[in-house]
């Protein structure tokens, strides 16, 4: 069995297991928030994975996630409310609209060679500014009145609202990550990596850089918008201020970089960890301290795990597995906390503490060096980003 079939099998299993979660929750009469917790996590996983397809793979630093997200929110919002489209029809359309917008942007910025590096990052940022002010100005889109999504009908087969949200976000997240994986393991992926490392040389070796960058940008925009649509449904009332702010673009960068941008699993891990920690800190109810901790954690993790948490887990997979599942088991069996989510987050924290041990020190502690499988990029090299100046 090849590595690919193994991974795809893994996807299938994960899909089935997660797909059954709503039923399990129902049977066990577990807190419905478990579903909310998971679908919010799926939201961030999808967002950061889609961002990573462009920036992580090709090295083109995008500040523009908010733009794709916003296009998704408003397209679904307008189609589903003002034109009464079925939500499940409006959603993919929103994705396509964003994808088209992405390609349009790419057509301009990738044609002009000088628009790489910082300039690309700044252009994507500027684009989301423009979109915001257009939305605010045109009453067809928002006109400063906001759009109400509450009461948007959802098809029966998705179940009640929370379950529907869960199922939709699950499908989108799975699609995003699957796409990220398939690209990662394809000629497209390798082409993008070579662009990230040295675009000039890549072209010289025959990589169709323009087409590949367009593909990456389009894919990023498409998935970014899909999740945007679902998000609109969850908050029920969307306004320009809530949609086009720096929160989404900054958090996706944060999650992907912490998880590791050089592997398709990186953003998934990053999003899962960051979201879990922030949710629990918030639940702990310490407003300001909470913010300070998040800020500090961010800095520490950026400095402490340079190659990204995922690759470090790969490098210490035995220890990670033992510690995480050990802690998880202990916490649940002895029922030390009030909910599974708490167990999960504590297990996470303990594992993180282990992961944060600097590699040389770790190697001194565990004499036997555990190396990652060859399919991975070698750890410990900082990612050269296109913004790193030329």
């Amino acid at each position, binding site marked *: 069995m090849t590595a690919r079939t193994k991974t795809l099998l893994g996807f299938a299993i994960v899909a089935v297991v997660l797909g059954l979660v709503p039923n399990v929750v129902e049977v066990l009469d577990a807190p419905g928030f478990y579903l909310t917790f998971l679908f919010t996590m799926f939201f961030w996983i999808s967002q950061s994975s889609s961002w990573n397809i462009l920036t992580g793979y090709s090295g083109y630093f995008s500040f523009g996630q908010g733009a794709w997200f916003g296009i998704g929110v408003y397209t679904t919002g307008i189609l589903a409310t003002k034109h009464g489209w079925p939500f499940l029809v409006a959603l993919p359309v929103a994705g396509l609209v964003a994808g088209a917008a992405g390609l349009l942007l790419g057509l301009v910025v990738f044609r002009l060679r000088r628009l790489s590096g910082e300039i690309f990052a700044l252009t994507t940022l500027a684009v989301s500014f423009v979109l915001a002010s257009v939305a605010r100005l045109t009453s067809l889109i928002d006109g400063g009145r906001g759009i109400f999504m509450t009461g948007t009908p959802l098809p029966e087969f998705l179940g009640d609202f929370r379950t529907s949200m869960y199922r939709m976000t699950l499908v989108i997240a799975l699609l995003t990550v699957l796409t990220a994986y398939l690209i990662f*393991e*394809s*000629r497209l992926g*390798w*082409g993008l*990596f*070579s662009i*990230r*490392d*040295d675009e*000039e*040389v*890549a*072209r*010289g*070796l*025959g*990589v*169709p*850089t323009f087409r590949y960058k367009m593909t990456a940008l389009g894919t990023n925009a498409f998935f970014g918008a899909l999740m945007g649509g679902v998000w609109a449904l969850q908050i029920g009332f969307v306004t320009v201020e809530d949609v086009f702010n720096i929160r989404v673009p900054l958090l996706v960068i944060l999650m992907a970089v912490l998880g590791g941008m*050089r592997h398709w699993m990186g953003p998934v891990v990053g999003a899962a960890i960051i979201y879990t920690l922030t949710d629990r800190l918030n639940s702990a109810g310490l407003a300001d301290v909470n913010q300070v901790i998040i800020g500090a954690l961010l800095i520490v993790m950026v400095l402490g795990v340079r190659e990204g948490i995922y690759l470090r887990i790969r490098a210490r997979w035995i220890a990670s597995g033992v510690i995480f599942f050990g802690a998880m088991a202990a916490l649940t069996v002895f029922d030390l906390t009030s909910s599974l989510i708490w167990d999960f987050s504590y297990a996470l924290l303990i594992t993180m503490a282990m992961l944060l041990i600097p590699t040389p020190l770790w190697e001194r502690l565990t004499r036997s060096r555990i190396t990652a499988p*060859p399919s991975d*990029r*070698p750890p410990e*090299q900082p*990612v*050269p980003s296109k913004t790193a100046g030329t």
Partner: protein
Amino acid sequence: MNLLTCTSISKRFGGIRALDGVSTSIEEHEILGLVGPNGSGKSTLINLLSGLYAADDGQAVFGDRDLLRLPPEKIAAAGVARTFQIPRPFDTMTVRENVSVSYMFGHRRHSLEAARDAASEWLAFTGLEAVADSPVDQLTLHQLKFLELARALATEPTLLLLDEVLAGLNPTEIDQSIEMIKRIHERGIALVIVEHLLRVVTSLSHRIVVLDQGRVIASGDPTEVMEDPAVVAAYLGGSRPNA
């Protein structure tokens, strides 16, 4: 017959004429030495032929295509590859991955699996198997130069442009490199070598073209060319060859 025919190629950088109507040609299976004092336009020509720069004027007919009108990726597909004087490997990839990527694209598209096998083949050919799976930042300059070669060869070129492969190497490494170039040539690949070390060029090349201030001042049999008074003048008058 001619593999590549260059006619009156010109390139200006601001006021400076880097190339001024250069015309020359390369035959199949030929090793062409491209020499000349610093700033005579050798590297510029390579950069034009590999599509890195856009030419102001002229033609470089390769098969039925004009290289000067093609983007780099098309040039690679056409079967022309180059190496860089200062190696530019993909530095987040392993040696093997570097080579497989160029095989995946290059002259024809290939699957990842095929690329992995081809990579090992070229790594073997360039004697890099030992470091195949180590990150490139662990390689010596010598190895990096060979990686450049392996990567270029993996694109399955019919014409290979070598930009100062020997610069910065010690004598034994130079000899190994010369062997390597010969073996590449034995595979039926035509070569253009830009080199400062005249003794090497003369010993390797079938033919030599001498550039000075963007013009071809001599071309033909190596030994004869190097005795041509114009060439000697150019070298003595211009900056000395750092041999």
